[in-house]
């Protein structure tokens, strides 16, 4: 996150100074742009074209194809509105709580004096866990913590308590929240570590030399420097939870309303026919929300980068 920006500028300065005139400047510029073409094509086909197509389809009637805004009025009422609200709430909750846990874990391994290996293990494991999701993740929890799960059995055998008789459940919004922690906490560890590494020991030493205690250091130095990065990471977690889909559906069978599940039912399901364009409208609403989040993320990253250079 930190050092890469400064490096990008230097090679150009070096080459243009060292070998004047060997390749004409306009051609050099063109060649440099040529390198970006594959990525540009990729973005155009994979991101821009689909987004435009979704935006167009969202304003079309499913049967006649004529322009309409009715998809949006349906999308913003009843169960679809409920779905958006639940999706937002769940995503916010599964950003903040794992965000705090992830920060604490990252800080712990960042400050651990001994044990490079522990640090490596935590980072590698986080990389694996953060990418584990979908139906396999739901099934992992069902196999371990459902009524007949292995861990449920152990708890019963050791403590004589069946957690399911005391209100524990996987098949609700709380269950989904619980399961999402499994990949959200490691994701937070991965994304916040570079920011923690940007906190220079020299700042702390300087603060201590001037008589600052731990609290004062965090209140006036560490906290303000870290805060934009922390918020940025929360937004990333928000996006990750907002788009997650298969795990929640596998666990709750549509008994909690979530927008991605509803889109799936509209576009891909075997029950609702002829309402694809409502799905596109919901998709466009999600795109807009994520776009707002990404703009926020960019602004915060810029603020963070000011200190972490």
């Amino acid at each position, binding site marked *: 996150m930190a050092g890469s920006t400064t490096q990008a500028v230097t090679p150009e300065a070096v080459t243009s100074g060292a070998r004047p005139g060997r390749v004409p400047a306009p051609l050099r510029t063109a060649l440099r742009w040529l390198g970006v073409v594959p990525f540009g094509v990729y973005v155009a086909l994979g991101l821009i074209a689909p987004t435009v197509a979704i935006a167009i389809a969202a304003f079309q009637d499913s049967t006649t194809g004529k322009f309409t805004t009715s998809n949006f009025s349906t999308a913003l009422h009843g169960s679809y509105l409920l779905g958006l609200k639940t999706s937002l709430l769940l995503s916010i909750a599964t950003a903040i709580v794992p965000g705090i846990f992830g920060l604490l874990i990252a800080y712990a391994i960042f400050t651990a004096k001994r044990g490079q290996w522990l640090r490596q293990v935590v980072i590698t494991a986080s990389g694996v866990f953060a990418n584990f999701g979908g139906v396999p993740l739901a099934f992992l929890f069902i196999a371990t913590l459902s009524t007949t799960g292995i861990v449920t059995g152990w708890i019963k055998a050791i403590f004589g308590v069946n957690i399911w008789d005391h209100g524990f459940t996987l098949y609700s919004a709380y269950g989904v929240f619980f399961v999402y922690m499994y990949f959200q906490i490691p994701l937070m560890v991965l994304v916040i570590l570079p920011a923690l590494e940007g906190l220079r020991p020299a700042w702390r030493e300087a603060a201590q030399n001037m008589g600052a205690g731990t609290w004062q250091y965090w209140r006036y130095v560490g906290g303000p420097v870290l805060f934009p990065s922390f918020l940025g990471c929360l937004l990333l977690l928000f996006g990750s939870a907002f788009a997650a889909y298969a795990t929640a559906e596998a666990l709750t069978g549509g008994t909690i309303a979530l927008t991605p599940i509803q889109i799936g039912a509209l576009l*891909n399901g075997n029950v609702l026919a002829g309402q694809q364009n409502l799905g596109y409208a919901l998709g466009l609403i999600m795109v807009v929300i994520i776009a707002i989040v990404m703009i926020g993320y960019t602004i915060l990253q810029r603020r963070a980068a000011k200190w972490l250079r």
Partner: protein
Amino acid sequence: MQRKKTIAAIAALLAGVVLATGCSSSSSSGGTTASTDWSKASSAAAGGGMAALVKAAEKEGQLNVITLPSNWANYGTIMSDFSKKYHIHITDANPEGSSGQEITAVQQLKGQSRAPDVVDVGTPFAVEGANSHLWAPYKVASWSNIPANAKDANGDWYADYGGYVAIGYDPAKVKVAPTSFASLANPAYKNMIGLNNSPTTAGAAFAAVYAAALANGGSFGNIEPGIKYFAHLKSIGNFVPTAIGGPTTVQNGTTPILVWWDYLLASEVKPVVKNFKIVIPSDSSYASYYDQAISATAPDPAAARLWEEYLYSTTGQNQWLEGFARPIELSTLVAAGTVNKTAYAALPPAPSGSLTFPTQAQQAAAENVVTQDWAKQVGG
């Protein structure tokens, strides 16, 4: 058809868009032989008889089917037997796809040689396709044996196979045998009862809610009591709302009781769960059938028609039955004594009385009610 969803919603969006932008439909393909334009033939007789149909189909030598899993309703055997008999190569696109994806493929691959010739879809999709003029009307030789309320009068689509909503249970874990929807409220069934998926997504789970409605004072025009029923089962802790109900969740005890189609309980769960029992609830009999239709723009119009003739022959009907699906002409087979008796005995006995189905308007209204109310009522 309950088929696994393998791609996330957004991925589906992207894929749909890539298809939409990637292929602009040019011309629709016409007939293949000079003598008969099979793409216009509305029966074998109208095209010059079965022999001519076989000849034209063999000349095409190719049939494109879509979303037919080989382990589903015995389709693996049916496809290979048909292939062998007529020397027609079958391409099965997207075997694990859904009805919605079949419709999309017919629309977007129109004019290409790989476009689907025939589809096997849920009734709402068959009707949607007919409204969009996607199907070529065709009446198989045994057309009159298909009940009138299970086919389009014009021949656009016709029921093929299906079954009843049934309760399956593992007697090793379920000590009291369930017999009806009412009996499932027994406190002994705490954390035991599952559906195969969400009723907002899967036809089977939706049918279970419809069936529960019929058992609880609802009707084809009123599915709400079915939603309330599952909300009640959830509030007393009996209903486990996981969306991955199936053989595994019965085996590992997550849902030792599963409400699903009788033929899927028989074909998918029974082989892996010892002594597994299947009953059709005494307080509700709800049957549903999938439908066949021939694409109006089929690249292999004769092979498509021959495929339908094969499916609705005694052989084809019995082959579905051997895959535990109830073929639509089952009562004809039973009456004529041509039914495969072993296969017939594997399914729970069908309730007496003739089949009734919701009208399209009722079905569509019920779908919207479930979509709107399922999360609100059963969640919470």
